[in-house]
């Protein structure tokens, strides 16, 4: 028996909990659900057009898939990366029919990264409202990558693993997404 079995569940790391769940502990899996369900539901809510029922279904789907695959979990893998990979794939399947977005990503990746930052002169009071609007209008792949990094606070290597692209591509996409956001925010300057 390893040492983590002696610690209370709440003090164990995600990876320790997942390792316990892999050996059949449902309480360890429930603890993981308690830690991540709200966060994933929020992620889906923002990615899937603000439909709470759809977000709840998708969240349950993530955990159902993780539960079914718990026996195959590799201990060296981070649990948050693993759960967000499942979540990212669910989002991708949701938008599968949108060939426009695949084209957009290809053309975005082909563009050189601009070092020039667009200046936005905006009242801080309306920034939250304007940004929420701008994020909703972003193409799904850009919104996902922005959300994973800046809102879910995942690292560049984690996002590279989730999305399945090199770290450099993640960095350039994040930079270009930020420029698109600034460009769109500019429209709110005089409102």
């Amino acid at each position, binding site marked *: 028996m390893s040492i983590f079995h002696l610690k209370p569940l709440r003090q164990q790391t995600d990876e320790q909990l997942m390792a316990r769940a892999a050996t059949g502990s449902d309480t360890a899996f429930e603890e993981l659900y308690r830690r991540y369900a709200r966060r994933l539901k929020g992620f889906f809510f923002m990615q899937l057009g603000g439909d709470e029922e759809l977000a709840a279904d998708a969240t349950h789907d993530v955990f159902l898939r993780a539960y079914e695959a718990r026996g195959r979990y590799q201990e060296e893998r981070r649990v948050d990366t693993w759960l967000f990979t499942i979540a990212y794939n669910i989002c991708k399947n949701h938008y599968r029919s949108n060939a426009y977005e695949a084209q957009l990503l290809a053309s975005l990746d082909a563009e050189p990264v601009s070092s020039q930052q667009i200046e936005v002169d905006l009242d801080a009071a309306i920034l939250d409202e304007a940004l929420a609007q701008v994020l909703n209008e972003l193409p799904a792949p850009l919104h996902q990558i922005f959300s994973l990094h800046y*809102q879910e606070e995942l690292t560049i290597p984690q996002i590279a693993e989730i999305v399945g692209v090199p770290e450099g591509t993640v960095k350039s996409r994040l930079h270009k997404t930020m420029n698109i956001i600034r460009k769109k925010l500019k429209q709110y300057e005089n409102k």
Partner: protein
Amino acid sequence: MKISNEQIIQSARRQREAVNNSMDVEPWSHSHRRGRGLAAVIGIAASLVSFIAGYGLHANMSQPDVQPLAQTVKVQHDTIMQKETIRDTIYQTRTVTRTVTKHVESLTAQREPQSTTSEIPQAATPAEQMACSMLCDNIPYDLLAQP
């Protein structure tokens, strides 16, 4: 006021916090989520029940305008049996069987011969009995007397 990237990131995080705090999370259950799935199952079940009920009602309604596809009439002893095959839908036919027994029974009863047991002459003495048995190849008189 000039907006920095850091302000945009902070704003995005505030949005995330607000959304996460407004989310209700159901307790974990590894069975499939009830909700839309349950509604769909109830919908399908309701459709099935209404179809079966409608079909039953349709089958039980008298349909004088519906002509049978086939009809057979059989007479067996005291029963007249009529079989009709009726098409209810394109995919479904049913057989209606009607039997009439009572009327034929009464007719049969009228045609049955009257019992003649009482008219059989009874031998008066043992000698007569013996004589009669001898005449009839030694068949016991008791048997001959039976109708």
